[in-house]
């Protein structure tokens, strides 16, 4: 791959052994859960750890019918608009923070930074209270807006760091040509920032998909609940675990893995490349 091996044979063997051990601790629990999800319930009850025996897809059908299918659809209904709201707000704000000389910029940055570190658990109850008194409780689009706002704060800093790497000349040239600020933003900045915008979309998709407390409190009706909330309550019904719960977990994770596989190529380059240099 990258030229000659750096180490002697024994060191390489030791490194490989340690790596294989680490990989095993990662995949062993996953393989176990996948196997449990494929076992007939009766066989599982007789012997919870057996790896042999029958294979069935019935658990997935049961999990899907018992709320997970509805939950996945609800999650998509809530999260897709929420991601768009978050990315819209943060693209605007990021551009403002990076490319506009605005007075009292520090205030805006402080407010957004504090939202970024606020514990979600502390916000669950007050957001519930407010939604109740303002009348948008149990409303999926209401949750989309709340998510969109909550998870746009970090994205604004992310977008600001991206925009600040764009050369100022580009923007000044456009201004000299008589374009308004909004023109420059829409026609020059946004197209150039598209990879960064897409990164915020995908990362927020992951974060919102697993968000628990606000989802549970905001959507009390079972028919409206997101998949994360449904799964957490699934656990309540079958506490010791079992094939249907295992299937429910895998169904919950499947969309995340698909999104990860699709996004992996440029997520790596865009997000994880330059972020930690200091």
């Amino acid at each position, binding site marked *: 791959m990258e030229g000659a091996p750096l180490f002697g044979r024994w060191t390489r063997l030791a490194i490989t052994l340690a*790596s294989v051990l680490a990989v095993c601790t990662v995949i062993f629990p996953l393989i176990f859960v996948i196997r449990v999800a494929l076992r007939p319930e009766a066989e599982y009850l007789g012997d919870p750890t057996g790896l042999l025996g029958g294979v069935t897809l019935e658990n997935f059908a049961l999990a899907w019918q018992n709320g997970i299918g509805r939950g996945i659809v609800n999650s998509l209904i809530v999260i897709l608009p929420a991601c768009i709201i978050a990315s819209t707000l943060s693209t605007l704000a990021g551009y403002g923070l990076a490319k506009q000389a605005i007075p009292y910029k520090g205030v805006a940055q402080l407010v957004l930074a504090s939202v970024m570190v606020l514990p979600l658990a502390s916000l669950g109850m007050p957001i519930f209270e407010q939604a109740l008194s303002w009348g948008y409780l149990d409303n999926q689009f209401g949750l989309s807006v709340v998510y969109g706002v909550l998870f746009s704060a970090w994205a604004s800093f992310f977008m600001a760091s991206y925009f600040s790497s764009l050369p100022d000349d580009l923007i000044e040239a456009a201004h000299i040509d008589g374009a308004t600020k909004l023109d420059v933003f829409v026609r020059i900045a946004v197209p150039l920032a598209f990879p960064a915008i897409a990164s915020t979309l995908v990362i927020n998709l992951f974060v919102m998909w697993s968000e628990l407390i606000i989802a549970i409190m905001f959507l009390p009706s079972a028919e409206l609940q997101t998949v994360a909330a449904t799964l957490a309550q699934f656990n309540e019904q079958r506490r010791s675990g079992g094939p249907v719960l295992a299937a429910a977990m895998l169904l919950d994770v499947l969309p995340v893995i698909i999104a990860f596989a699709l996004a992996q190529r440029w997520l790596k380059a865009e997000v994880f490349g330059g972020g930690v240099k200091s």
Partner: protein
Amino acid sequence: MVASAGFGQAAASWRARSTQGSGRASMTGWLFVLPQLVLVAALVLLPLGRVIYLSFMQYDGFTDPVFIGLQNYLDLIVWKDFQRQVLNTFLLVLALPLWVLLPFTLAALSHDHPRKAWLRFFFLLPGILPAVVVGMIFRMVLSDRGPANELLRALGLPGVPWLSNDPLVLATVALVIAWGMMGSGVMFYSAGLSALPRERVEAAILDGANWWDLVRHIYWPATIPVTRFWSMILVLATVTTFYPWIVGLTRGGPGIASSTIDHAVFLAGMGSSRLGLAAAMAVVGVLAIIVILGLVTQLSPKERG
């Protein structure tokens, strides 16, 4: 924990925030930031203000709130359960070296390995699973008749009460979180190591350095910024984002042996009729973050260069 990736970028840009800007200072620039700030104020800061207000009230959600001063906070301080939850949070922070060294070691192992891409794929895998699911997976794997204990018994060892023994359950939580956080950690450390010039490594090997020397004298020093940043994320996470793991893994049990501050806030917000007390807990959660951020910025060495 994929979010922490973006968080890293955000933190980096916060530190090196740009002072550039085109044109003269003008209020029209605010129009870009305003939509977000207005919504943040209405949907986040306003509720936050309300929770602070309620924390000084006796309030059950139905009748009008009655001002009782600091009574909710005093009740919290003497409440044995809450004391235990605070203690648990501090005990969990002791696992910080594990949460830092595990991803560092894995990144160092896979750095320059011929099967690098494959290894990293597997190391990143836990990072994309939602925390509740990670907790639930290990609830199955570590249960009394689960595969981990059956394996131990097959080897002639006694089974371990991973989830049902009072002090031990905290160690189990720390281990499961190490597994769950590993993906993001490996990602950051790999990025840090990939910035390392290969010539430096090769030169060290020509000088007779073995793998352990490399790790100690080159890999670890080169990734100190990552370690500093990653430790901060971990400490913040301990007080803010551990509850999904706990909900999936132990539900705080046995009793409240594995319940933490954020899990307490989570439970209080959801199921309490004493909303004033729940509000006080939520405020304590916020205060904990402020204190920790203050400590981290005071204690962390000033960056050189």
